[in-house]
């Protein structure tokens, strides 16, 4: 390889490295992710004391009992939730849970209201930087059976936020 040939090779390598390492973070920012997307649990969904045979619904405007997460980021996003069918006691007893439209809500920082959605299906929205962080709220219906045993019941909800 001549000196000119080696020069081309070095130039090409430098250009390639520059493109591979340089623009990627910029593209990530433009896409709204790039490591700037965070989801933090603020408070659990807590039904509190339930009575056997007496269903109880927590609504997204129940500030004390609703589940709440904080989302920071910007750009087009999609929320998906992995919802449990029931809460379990350490002894294996179950309390049925039911989620439907209106049991999830999204509140953008600068918005006055909460946009309701169905937590059982994915929900897409655009989060502008001035609206970050956004709040995700979650309620639902718990239906203890008439013969429900006393005790502590628990489950977990996984919330996934994806950016295309």
């Amino acid at each position: 390889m001549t000196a000119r040939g080696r020069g081309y090779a070095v130039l090409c390598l430098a250009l390639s490295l520059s493109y591979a390492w340089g623009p990627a973070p910029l593209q990530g920012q433009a896409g709204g992710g790039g490591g700037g997307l965070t989801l933090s649990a603020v408070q659990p969904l807590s039904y509190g004391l339930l009575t056997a045979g007496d269903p109880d619904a927590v609504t997204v405007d129940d500030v004390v009992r609703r589940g709440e997460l904080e989302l920071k980021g910007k750009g087009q996003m999609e929320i998906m939730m992995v919802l449990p069918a029931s809460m379990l006691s350490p002894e294996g007893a179950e309390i049925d849970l039911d989620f439907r439209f209106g049991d999830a809500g999204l509140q953008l920082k600068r918005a006055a209201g909460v946009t309701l959605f169905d937590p059982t299906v994915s929900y897409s929205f655009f989060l502008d930087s001035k609206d970050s962080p956004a709040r995700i709220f979650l309620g639902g219906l718990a239906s203890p059976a008439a013969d429900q045993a006393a005790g502590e019941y628990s489950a977990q909800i996984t919330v996934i936020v994806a950016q295309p």
Partner: protein
Amino acid sequence: MTKLTISLATLALMVAPAGVQAQVNTNTNNTIGVSATVGKAFRWSLGQDLLFGTIAPEGDGSTANVTVATNQLVAAGGRQAGYVSLYFNAATNVTVAAPASLAGGLGGTLAVTFTCGAATSGNGGTLDVLASGACADADVLSLTLSGTGSETVDIFFGGTLAGADVEAAAADTYTGTITLTAVQP
């Protein structure tokens, strides 16, 4: 010129991964807990009283003991075991406060001893929860849930009046009260 062509091809190949990197999805996830507490509860309902019926003393020392078994819901001579039903959804201790004697309207007393046991409600007095046994004052029946749901059990009471005590008693109607106190620890 040939070398330049090769170099551009190299450039194109090396650019490609950067383009792929820009299409990688960005995801984040977290979990929140869901919780509830079902409170402890119990509820009483009276099934029927314990009755010894009408007893006719022999008057010659031959009067037999009068016994009502815990599973004798209906017996001859107007006798019957007593029972109460208890709904509970957590382990429950039932403390018995039983009198040592029945009190007559004229002021006399009649000594009595009790037996008791517990059965799944509706089981017709078949004691499948607690075996029948002596049931004295301050005895405790410890009831636990057999499954993952609440239960209702019937707590039965029988008893015995000694023949000698019956013969010694004045003619009268004698009554007493058994008090049950449920505590869910």
